[in-house]
């Protein structure tokens, strides 16, 4: 890796790049799934390549290749410089980067059990046991279980003299029980929807999930939903389960704080943000108990947004985002930090692979825990609806108006869990919603969830992000509106 990366850097510099960085990646992925009693998708892939990013004539260029011969690397580096010169045909000012120090380092993420060392047959055995438990429940029409393992090995070098090696292992697993009855499809997922739970860890994550032990209970809930009452429509207090709060954070805090959106560079696709520059330190984002951080450091936990250095070679940081309800920070890059007069990037530039350019992405954007258990929160609630496990999510392109649906709901009456509710949905406006938060459960309920499928950028990049959340209560929220029409 080293010699190729250095060669690309030298070529780019020789061709006229004022700044250059090179990432060489080797990504291995294994995806396994079962479906109604049989192995469904069993596949593995390996992808190696190199991406060269340069500033030449004051503008950006990027080229990537999987032809890792000397000739292929030279061509790619020269192409990046030529592309930058073409970019300069349509520029207003020079690209300027916030200063950063040279770094030479090596980091390997903790991984107790290498998931690639676990026999595939053992993984499939476990998934088929889950499958059998799900299908043992009368009324289940589709049983799905999956595991997803990735090993991402990366070398970053830059014309600052940085040379950073990082190795990460990511693991994900989960299952879905689906029931079709009487013209209605109901689903329950565990431990989360859309592939389950994902973290920067090894197979130990799968072992801790107790997939088999939870399969029958979750499948029974899927079937029971057919007979549950429809979630009412109106204004109600709500409690969001931990994983649903994780996605709420992702959409209504994580994306709005991306400074590239604020500055307009995502205007055509992913959208912009209501968090315009003058709102920094001048906006009550949430109630006083809401505290949020963007934390890529190992200390925050093994999230999908955990690393030692971002893809510009900036060290991982913990950036305060909301402090006692006040908006205090953005996710930034070296270029956007400089554009708004900040001294340093917050270290949020990430690329999906060797063939994608780093863009500002969430790291681990988390709401810090409050106090008390979920049982205590429910006991202190007179009348509310509890929402668990995401089913649908949507928010406008400036991140004000959102609507979420979950797989499952409980009515809470007089401090106790009451009837089950199906098709629960809730909607709101971001800052009004976070300002209505009056309780956040404590560390014992806090989970660092992984969102493996966050899409942004053109060409599209899918990135894994982390979101620490514990259940929380919000007052006077619009519920049930999706089915009210």
């Amino acid at each position, binding site marked *: 890796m080293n010699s190729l990366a250095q060669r690309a850097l030298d070529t780019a510099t020789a061709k006229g790049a004022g700044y250059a960085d090179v990432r060489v990646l080797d990504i291995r992925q294994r995806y396994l799934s079962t479906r109604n009693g049989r192995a469904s998708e069993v*596949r593995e892939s390996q992808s190696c390549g190199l991406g060269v990013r340069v500033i030449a004539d004051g503008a*950006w260029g990027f080229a990537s290749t999987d032809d890792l011969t000397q000739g292929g690397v030279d061509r790619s580096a020269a192409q990046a410089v030529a592309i930058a010169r073409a970019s300069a045909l349509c520029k207003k000012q020079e690209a300027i980067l916030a200063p950063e120090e040279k770094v030479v380092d090596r980091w390997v993420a903790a991984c107790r059990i290498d998931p690639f060392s676990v026999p595939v047959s053992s993984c*499939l055995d476990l998934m088929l046991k889950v499958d059998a438990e799900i299908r043992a429940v009368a009324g289940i029409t589709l049983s799905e279980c999956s595991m997803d393992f990735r090993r991402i090995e990366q070398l970053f070098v830059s014309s600052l003299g940085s040379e950073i090696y990082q190795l990460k292992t990511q693991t994900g697993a989960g299952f879905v029980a689906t029931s079709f009855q009487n013209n209605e499809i109901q689903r329950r997922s565990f431990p989360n929807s859309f592939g389950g739970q994902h973290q920067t860890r090894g197979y130990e994550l799968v072992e801790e999930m107790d997939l088999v032990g939870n399969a029958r209970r979750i499948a029974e809930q899927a079937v029971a939903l057919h007979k549950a009452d429809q979630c009412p429509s109106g204004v109600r207090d709500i409690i969001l389960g931990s994983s649903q709060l994780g996605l709420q954070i992702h959409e209504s805090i994580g994306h709005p704080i991306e400074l590239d959106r604020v500055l307009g560079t995502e205007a055509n696709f992913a959208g912009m943000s209501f968090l315009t520059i003058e709102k920094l330190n001048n906006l009550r984002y949430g109630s006083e108990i809401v505290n949020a951080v963007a934390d890529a450091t190992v200390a925050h936990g093994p999230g999908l947004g955990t690393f030692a250095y971002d893809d510009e070679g900036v060290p991982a940081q913990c950036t305060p985002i909301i402090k006692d309800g006040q908006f205090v920070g953005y996710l930034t890059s070296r270029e956007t930090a400089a554009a708004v007069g900040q001294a340093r990037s917050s270290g949020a530039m990430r690329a999906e692979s060797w063939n994608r350019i780093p863009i500002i992405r969430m790291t681990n954007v988390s709401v810090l825990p409050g106090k008390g258990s979920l049982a205590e929160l429910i006991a202190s609630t007179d009348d509310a609806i509890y929402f668990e496990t995401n089913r649908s999510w*949507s928010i406008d392109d400036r991140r004000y108006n959102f609507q979420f649906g979950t797989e499952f709901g409980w009515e809470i009456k007089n401090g106790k869990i009451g009837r089950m509710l199906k098709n629960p949905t809730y909607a709101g406006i971001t800052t009004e919603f976070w300002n209505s938060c009056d309780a956040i459960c404590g560390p014992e309920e806090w989970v660092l969830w992984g969102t493996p499928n966050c899409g942004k950028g053109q060409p599209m990049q899918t990135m894994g992000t982390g979101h620490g959340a514990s259940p929380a209560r919000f007052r006077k929220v619009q519920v049930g509106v999706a089915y009210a029409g």
Partner: protein
Amino acid sequence: MLTRKKAEEIFTQVLKYSTAEETEAIIGSTSYSLTRFANNIIHQNVAEEGVSVSVRAVVDHRTARASTNKLDEASIREVCEAALALARTQPPDPGLLGMPGPQTFRSVDRFHPGTANLSPQARAEMVKKVVARAEKDHLTAAGILSSGSVASGVFNSRGLGAFHEETSSEFSVTMLGETSSGWAKAGSPNCESLDPELLADRAARKALDSHDPKEVPPSKYTVILEPSAVLDLLGFLFFDFGGLAVHEQRSCLTGRVGQKLFGDNIQVRDDVFHPLQAGAPFDGEGIPRQRVILVERGVVKGVVHARRTAQLMKTQPTGHGFPLPNDIGEVPMNIVMEGNKASVEDMIRSTERGLLVTRLWYIREVDPFQKILTGMTRDGTFWVEDGKIQYGVRNLRFNQSVIEMLNHVEMLGTPQRTAGEESFEMVVPAMKVRDFSFSSLTKF
């Protein structure tokens, strides 16, 4: 760029190293460039090239796939061994079919050298035209211009060989005003059919005409959906037209195939050979794609089938399967919806009170059987009254069953190749729809 000859040479190597009972390889290459602009400058400009060799092994009624992007002999050997080793880890699957033999394909010509070789300088010049249009009216432009080529072949040890190459290009333009925005997008296998000035002007007019948007209360309205809005809604429906989705009872068509589900004026087919379509004339197993009538006069006439699903459902494969093994089965991805001759202007003229929608955003499925979708309007939403556009309005959230919507279509435009941001490209018309349900407003 991968040629058929080179792909066949790689497959010969695959066969040399594969000891599976049956072996399939999907061999492909990509060359892709994208120029991205915002704030009236080019701020990202990227290019990629890559190859892939994806090997599927079958042994004792078991199958698995392994892929690599390294073409050296050792890597080809390793990927063959990995596919076989993965296959052997599984319990046998009695329903697994043997690989298909040689097939006959109708060729489609979708490769344009000018698009494959569009230079970054040429892309920059096209972007400059958009920026010039923006600056003429003190607007800010953002968007992308992409171009590239792909080549992909499916080969198997029973003698099947299918190969396709095509080019693609996309131009998407957003124009931002002080209080409003507009958008236009086009895609084509031939970049010469993209007109940057036309797209820029359309987006600019949307932004200018929707300045200082007013609020209209959320309610049921007649809506005029421009083709991109139609595309993005329909994109969430056609995954349900896969045979496996119906067989597994996860489709909204479960128990409804053969029934009249939509209005009389709804007619849809999947047709990879349509002159405005793109894509390969074969599927992930190398089976020739067929034209399939999906909806005729509102009746669900058929769904598409991969080989395995066809056997499960006792019918014939239609050539719409994804590469095996996969969890999805098959999807029709060359949608052609028939229309009529009404223009958007005709629809506006015939509307007493309603909304004109340029584009939708962040559409998600709320209910999988009723097919209720939610999402937002974006980049140019207008109040129409007494047959005229009156003013721009703040964006609204909708919650609408797309099945119900296709029973409320009052007018259809001329079908056109359409690009959106939420779905794959289709050939669809504009639509005028009554009683489209909006549930809330946003702040802009």
